[in-house]
């Protein structure tokens, strides 16, 4: 069975890709600020907080870069 809507020639996903990246990056940044405030203000101490912040940023940046890289490749792919 063939699903023509999934054929990239007939259906351009690009606006949805950038919208998805914009929404998820926005959520990541806003929540990152909130987490930083909560973790520091409500007293998650020293190494735990540093590890949590490093892990959060590292994972988020990797996923953002992957999403953007795939979207760019999608755009440039012929």
């Amino acid at each position: 069975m063939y699903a023509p809507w999934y054929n990239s020639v007939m259906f351009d996903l690009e606006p949805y890709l950038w919208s998805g990246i914009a929404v998820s990056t926005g959520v990541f940044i806003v929540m990152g600020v909130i987490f930083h405030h909560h973790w520091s203000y409500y007293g998650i101490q020293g190494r735990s907080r540093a590890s949590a912040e490093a892990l959060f940023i590292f994972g988020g940046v990797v996923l953002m870069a992957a999403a953007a890289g795939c979207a760019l490749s999608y755009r440039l792919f012929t």
Partner: protein
Amino acid sequence: MPPFEAHEHVVYEGRKHWLPLFIGMAVIVTLALLPAFIATGFISAGSFVIDSRGLLGFASLYCSWLLLLWVGGFRLWTDYILDIWIVTDHKLIDIEQRGLFNRHISTLHLEKVQDVTVEVNGILATTMDFGDLIVQSAGTEPEFAIRGIYHPYRMKEALLGACSHLTNGSQAQPEQQKPQAQPLPSSGTTSTLA
């Protein structure tokens, strides 16, 4: 920060059991894997014909989805880590984080503690060592309930230990301040009561 006073020492810190956090994380992992499984299933069954460009588009959307779930996982962890019960040598402090912007802090002075009850109900709670700790108090709120705490018996022991330490300390203090009995004069006048 917890409402500590000067010269107040933390005796015990209790947390919620990790089981609700584990279940939440399992849901997030399932949601993360679900699109990949569905897409693989449809493609392998021949329902979709997907070219390389389509695959890149799917990968980009999938990464955005994973980023949202990544944030959701940290939100769950934050909710777990900021729920804490602290027994100090003067107070019992209950800090409950309900969502990101709703924080509830209750404090009970140990002088007001009358009775401490631990309720562990069911096989799961018994085997995984979690339950409820109910403190009867003489304060404005007659009952101070701590739900779903990990190691409730340890918390109870710590609380009762701090209470008895405080009581013994307050009983011992007046004795120390009591003036020592003066020796009676060996000779001289006899005092009379007026």
